[in-house]
């Protein structure tokens, strides 16, 4: 059996504030095989972004965060790594694509400079010229035909869709094992978002990159992912291959999420007050590992 790219076991997260201790993740388990695209779906505040931030090793830097459970990345337990070693993985073995591409790029540096910075993460000695070549190659892969112009541009000079392509190119330039996409492009126009997602899908397939795809939109997930985990209030309530989850959603929350999909104009979840107990009954029950209360 191959080593999974990412293996999360019984992950718990709480925040200690002055008044109280709030638990946000109540024991999440999730696994991504090499080259697999896995979606994590749930409503706002369910704990998707914090999960991503733990995988990246960012939340570990926060004093108020209490984290337990294990996150194993390419066979390495992140807990055993120092903060420095976790930082080394970021931008090289795992990268990230964000919600709003334009505001995720630094407004006062040219795309070229920012691309160079990303490439230097994997190869600190890389010079400007080599960076330019590599970036041009990646930009061509995301269907940008005039990489030179983009290279010289500032983010505000490019469209949102262009910036999103640049972000995708940056994210894949160092050939990471895992790409985390946190609601990628939701700040964009729906059609542009669909286009860039399609592009991203083709590219990760081509590069055989594993993806943790975070979304609240099941419609988008269906297009993109192989497998889906549904997260509700810090618990995984359902998981399985996309096709089967979509065909026979087992959990009331999944059904509610699915019912919410066609309502593009918003309004969020429909009322589903009849069987409230269904919501606190996870379909997936993880065997508890010793040591965690």
């Amino acid at each position, binding site marked *: 059996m191959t080593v999974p790219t990412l293996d999360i076991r019984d992950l718990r997260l709480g925040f200690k504030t002055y008044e109280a201790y709030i638990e946000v993740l109540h024991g999440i388990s999730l696994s991504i095989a090499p080259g697999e695209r896995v979606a994590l779906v749930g409503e706002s505040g369910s704990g998707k972004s914090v999960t991503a931030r733990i995988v990246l090793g960012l939340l570990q830097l926060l004093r108020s965060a209490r984290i337990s459970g294990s996150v194993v990345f390419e066979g390495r337990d992140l807990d055993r790594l120092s903060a420095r070693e976790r930082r080394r993985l970021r931008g*090289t073995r795992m*990268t*990230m694509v*964000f919600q709003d591409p334009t505001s*995720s790029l630094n407004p006062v540096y*040219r795309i070229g400079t920012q691309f160079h*910075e990303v490439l230097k*993460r994997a190869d600190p000695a890389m010079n400007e010229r080599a960076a330019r070549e590599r970036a041009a190659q990646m930009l061509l892969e995301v269907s940008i035909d005039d990489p030179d112009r983009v290279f010289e541009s500032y983010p505000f000079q490019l469209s949102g869709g262009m910036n999103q392509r640049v972000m995708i190119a940056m994210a894949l330039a160092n050939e990471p094992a895992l790409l985390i996409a946190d609601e990628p492009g939701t700040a964009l126009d729906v059609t542009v978002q669909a286009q860039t997602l399609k592009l991203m899908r083709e590219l990760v397939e081509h590069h055989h990159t594993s993806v943790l795809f975070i979304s609240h939109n099941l419609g988008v997930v269906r297009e993109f992912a192989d497998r889906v985990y549904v997260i509700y209030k810090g618990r995984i309530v359902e998981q399985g291959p996309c096709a089967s989850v979509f065909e026979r959603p087992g959990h009331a929350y999944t059904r509610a999420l699915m019912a919410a999909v066609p309502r593009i104009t918003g309004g969020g979840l429909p009322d589903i007050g009849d069987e409230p107990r269904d919501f606190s009954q996870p379909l997936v029950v993880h065997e508890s590992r010793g040591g965690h209360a």
Partner: protein
Amino acid sequence: MTPTILIFVRRVGISCIVLLGVSMLIFAIARVIPGDPARIALGPSATAEQVAKLRAELRLDEPIAVQYGHFLSELAQGDLGISLYTNRPVVVDIAQFLPATLELIFVAGAMMIVIGLPLGIASARWRGTWIDNAIRMIALLGVSAPSFVWAVILMLLFAYFLPLFPIAGRISDTFAIEQVTGFLFLDTLIAGNLAAFGNAAWHVILPAFALALSGIGQTARLTRANMVETYDKPYVEMARSYGVPDRRIANRYAFKPSLIPSLTIIGLDFAAMLGNAFLVEAVFAWPGLSRYGVSVILRKDLDAIVGTVLIISATFLIMNLIVDVLVTIINPRIRYSRTAS
């Protein structure tokens, strides 16, 4: 780079118009203050004929618009008139006293940037820690007293009780430096006298620091505030998630966008030093423009008043111009928009 040049040219034009306005204003005000300049210059023992003769020479009996016309045509030839107090051309007087003031301001400005910005960056990078708290205390202290108060305190502490620095003046009397530019830092180097250069530098530290303290405090506070805001921006999160080291994020990715809003204020602080320098110069017996400015005003030395004010306004405007250009260089949005204001 064309838009930058365009902005520059426009700012120069605006500055000239402002200078013209200032000259009219100060020209009129100087003549409205009570007292007869000719009488003050000649003293109580002068006869009425002598006073009338000087008034005629100064064209004081002509209409003010005509006087102003003469002033402008002389100004066009680089002539600011004669000081009744020193009996020398005002231009010569200013050339003697201005460099001392400018030297003081430049050193203070450099301190403001070299000390204030790093303090602000460190404060933002380690916000909420003891480092941040210590820096914020220092910055608050700096802005809480005007510079002449700092001048007195620093002089008492570090020149009087603890004689680390000279108590007054620009350079020790033992050095005789030929005046070429008027800037001691340059003149000592031109003379090849490094000991004198060191001595001049040693003299400028305390007054410049007194002058810079509130600017240092303000720069640090402003930089911190802007950077703390920038730290919440998605592009900083992005840099983090790509593993860019904290130091690099602080010094580059969070700092540069934060510098744009800070820079204008820093420029204004720089210019404000021009005014504050007068009092600091008085405390440290610094032979700058302040002593000259005060005495010519008391003596109602018309040409000298107008000349001094004009030179100070021009310096102020030039500093603002430099800041504007720096802002356009740092901020690509201005550089690349045609509708730049």
